[in-house]
Each structure stands twice: as C-alpha cells, then as structure tokens.
C-alpha cells in the first residue's frame, strides 16, 4: 500500500452525470430516426411511463440484492399478487371505476393500491422468514427456492382466481389522452410518471435524509461493519424486503391497469426485465435502477417502433452494452 498523509488535498469528487445523460442522449438520437416529432413525443412519454412502472417494481429488489446479497427470483410473485388484490377492490366497485368523476375513480384506485401494498408487504415478511432466511449466503439455493416460491404463488393464483385472463378496465377519467397539437399524451401514462417520480423522490429522501436510509446505504456497502456498530442488519433487511414487496404490489396494480388485464403469470413475465434493470443500474443503487428502468423502456419503445424484430432482444443488448462499458452497472454501490 502506498503511504498516505493526512495533509494531502482531498480529491474532488465530480458528480457522475454521464449515466444521467444517457436517457436524454438516447431520446435526442432517436428524434431524427423516428422522423415525426409527435410520434417521438408519444414514444418518449410512453417510455418514461413504462420506465417509472418498472422502476417502482424493481426498486425494492435492488436494495434487497445490494443489502443482503439475496437473489430473489420470487419478486414477481408480489407483482402478480398485488395485481390480483387490486381486482378485489376495482372489480366489485366497477360503478366507481366507470364514473366520469376523477375523484370517484381515485377513491377506488387509492384503496385498491393501498390494500395491494399492505397484502404484498405482509406477504413479503412471510416470504423472507420462511423462504429467504434459511438460505442466506447460498446463491444457488436462493435461486431455486425463490423461483419455487414464484411458481407456488402463480399456481395459488390460478387455483384461487382461475386460469382465465381477468379484464381490468382503466378508470374512465384516466382513459384517453391530452392533445397538444399533433401530440397525444395518454392520461394514465402521466399518472404513472407522477407516481414513479414520487416513489423515486421518496426513496431518495428516505435514503439520504433519515438514519434508516443511512443504515440501508451503509448496509449495502458493508453489512458486516454495520453489524459491528451494533445494528441488526437482518431486521433492517426485513423492513427493506417488506417495503420492496409493497412497492412491487403497487407496481403490479399499476401495470395491470396499464395493460387492462390481470393474469397469474404477470409477475413471471416481468421478472427477467426487472433483473435486467437492477443489473444495469448497479446492485443496490436506487438512482441506477431509476435510470436503468427508463433506458430499458426507451430501448423497448423506440426499438419496437423502428425495428420491431429487435424488440425481442433489445433489453439484453442494452444490458450487454452497459456492462461492457461499466461492468458493475451504471452506479456501482457494492463490490459484487
């Protein structure tokens, strides 16, 4: 080790803004390729809305991954359960959903979301205690047991709700678009963007302005040292796991409303996409996860429009490109 002195100047820490500029650069590059400005705006808004929903679902997973080095392939189960729990409120109160009033619509969507978050949060505690706790530090077993958990959850949903796809109409006031000249912006996409931004800002606030947030950030970086300071990281992890599961539930309801349907494999379908986002962002990084989700959604939307066949592999190609540039993701937090 080279000798160091206390008196030497503190190296400046430039803010790493290159990853933040990536979505902007990508959007600008796509403008001439897409051709039509109105189509470009529509695709960009669609990407941002989709990215926010993916971020909501993935944000908990990145902290779980970073904090406890747990590979939870069962995260999709919370998305699916959240979506189904949402139908328990939204379908019986269809009259409120179909009402023309935004207030009436929100009065039914809000409890649906809260119930979904409460149930998935509680389920997260059970999942962590029963399935995750026995396999701490054993990655292969984690993959097997959490994938098993996802399959069991999916089959339970089939058993309880049946194999059919359940239509879930978007509330009336959230249907349609705002028209600005040639540009059409779907109302629900704006709502999704707003919710995603609130979740992101809320997460950043908690992580940067509270002691719990400091502990989570410290735990992601060095779990052992946090324990050596006298904190029970497993309790902290349980709280993070519960919050992550609740966010997955929120994402599940939002995604189901976006697709206007619910089926048991909704979580399974999103699992790989969410893992790609978490890996692109850097394990444990909420900001990285946020940017990764937007990038994945952009590549998916622009790619789907320009080269439809490419859409099948665009996420993987994006991940490969990012990892070749930054092998530990956009914002590396852990050494894993």
């Amino acid at each position: 080790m080279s000798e160091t002195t206390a008196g030497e100047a503190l190296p400046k820490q430039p803010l790493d803004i290159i990853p933040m500029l990536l979505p902007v650069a990508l959007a600008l590059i796509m403008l001439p390729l897409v051709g039509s400005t109105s189509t470009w705006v529509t695709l960009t808004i669609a990407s941002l809305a989709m990215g926010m929903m993916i971020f909501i679902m993935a944000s908990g997973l990145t902290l779980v991954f970073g904090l406890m080095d747990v590979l939870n392939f069962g995260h999709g189960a919370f998305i699916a359960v959240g979506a189904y729990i949402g139908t328990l409120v939204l379908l019986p109160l269809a009259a409120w959903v179909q009402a023309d009033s935004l207030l009436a619509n929100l009065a039914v969507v809000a409890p649906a979301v809260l119930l979904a978050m409460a149930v998935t949060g509680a389920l997260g505690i059970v999942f962590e205690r029963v399935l995750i706790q026995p396999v701490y530090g054993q990655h292969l077993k984690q993959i097997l047991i959490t994938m098993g958990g996802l399959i069991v959850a999916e089959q339970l949903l089939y058993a309880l709700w049946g194999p059919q796809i359940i239509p879930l109409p978007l509330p009336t006031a959230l249907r349609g678009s705002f028209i600005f000249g040639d540009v059409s912006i779907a109302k629900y996409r704006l709502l999704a963007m707003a919710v995603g931004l609130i979740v992101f800002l809320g997460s950043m606030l908690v992580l940067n302005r509270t002691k719990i947030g400091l502990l989570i950030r410290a735990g992601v970086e060095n779990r052992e040292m946090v324990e050596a300071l006298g904190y029970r990281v497993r309790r902290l992890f349980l709280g993070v796991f519960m919050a992550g599961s609740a966010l997955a539930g929120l994402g599940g309801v939002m995604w189901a409303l976006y697709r206007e349907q619910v089926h048991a494999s909704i979580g399974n379908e999103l699992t790989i996409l969410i893992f790609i986002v978490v890996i692109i962002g850097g394990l444990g990084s909420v900001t990285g996860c946020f940017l990764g989700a937007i990038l994945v959604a952009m590549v998916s939307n622009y790619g789907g429009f320009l080269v439809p066949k490419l859409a099948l592999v665009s996420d993987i190609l994006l991940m490969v490109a990012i990892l070749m540039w930054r092998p530990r993701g956009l914002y590396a937090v852990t050494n894993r």
Partner: protein
Amino acid sequence: MTDLLSLSGVTTHIGRYHILHGVDFAVPEGQTTMLLGRNGAGKTTTLRTIMGLSPASSGTITLGGTRIEAMATPDIAMMGVGYVPETMAVFSDLTVKENLVLAARNGPMDQARLDWIFGFFPPMKKFWLSRAGSLSGGQKQMLSISRAIIEPRKLLLIDEPTKGLAPAIVVALIDCLREIKRSGATILLVEQNFRVAEAIGDSVAVMDNGRIVHRGTMADLSRDTPLQERLLGLSLEAHQ
C-alpha cells in the same frame, strides 16, 4: 487488575480452514494489550472471533463476566465493544458526519466528545461534510478510529491501524491511542509495527499458527531482543 476480556481454548474455522487452534489469553481492564505475530498467524481472525464476525467453533470468550462466544455481532457491539477493522471499512458513500452519526448509538453525538476527537484528528473537522470515499488512506483510518470512539467504549478492538500510513500519521495515531487509553478505555491492538507496540502496549500476546505462543508484559518483550526475533521471526530493524 481484573481481566475485562478473556479467551479460553477458542478455535475458529472459516469455511473448511481451521484458523484458530485453541487461543488463550486475557486483556486486563484499563490496559492496552498488543496482539503480535507474523502475517497469517490468526490475529485478525482472533479480533473477528471476539466480535462475532467469524464465530468461534469452540472455547469460551468472556467480556466483563458475560459469555459472548455465541452472541450475535450487534449484541457484542452493544455491550460496549468498538471495532476498527484492518480494512478500515468506512462507508465511502456516506460523509464523515454520516459515518459518525451511525456510530453514535446512544442518541445525538456529544459535542465535547466530538471536539476531543477533532483535537487529535483535525481532518475530521475539515472534511466533515466530505464523502468518506474521497478521503486519503490516513484520513480513512482516522475516521475508522473516530467511529469506534465517538462514544465511550468498554473495549476497543483495533486491527493494524498504522498499516500503510506515513510516519507523521503514525505518530499522530500513537498520540491518539495514548489519549484514548488515558480516557480509561481497554484496548486490544493488533500491530505489525513493533515500535508502535512498544510505545503504547502494556501487555502483549504473541500468536503463531493460530495459537498464543507468548504472553507477558510489553516492557519485558521490548528488552529481550532474542525473544523478539524468535517470536516474531524478524529483526527489530525490519519492524521499524
């Protein structure tokens, strides 16, 4: 003088490797005990075992009359044990202030205590709001020690604090450790630099191949050059 910490027949395995083979020694209350030995002798593992980070496979560890070998690391820390690992393990994404906020377990930081720390580690005040990851090696070591002493601790476990540091910083660290000792703390210090050990150690335990091979006072070991060479395998010059 009573022993604050005592280890008896402690064995530790890490994976399939048998690292500690029945470690026996005691740390008298209010004293600085040096744990010396060649690289790979098991010094760091001994500290980690006391801290519960590499749990003992067998044997007993007693802290202030309480058996701690089966306790979880956070419980051991809450008994008043501060730990400064060899890697320093500062939270690089957090500021100096945030690192210390987390280390202050009993509420807000005590300003008088903070001023006491700033007294021998002025860079901590200067870089209060800087990210710990941007500090130099010496500053990180200061932060790591500051974190361990931000509140009074019964026992401090410090692992090679002078490793890789410039002589001027080593002198500052020795002053700091003396000051901590004067405050009444009991210290178990792993150190490769024999001059540092001589300067601050009261008693000494020397390890080799996962066992304690010598116990005594630091003063006796300092006077006995042949014993130093036999136990530590290096001439005194090599330690300077």
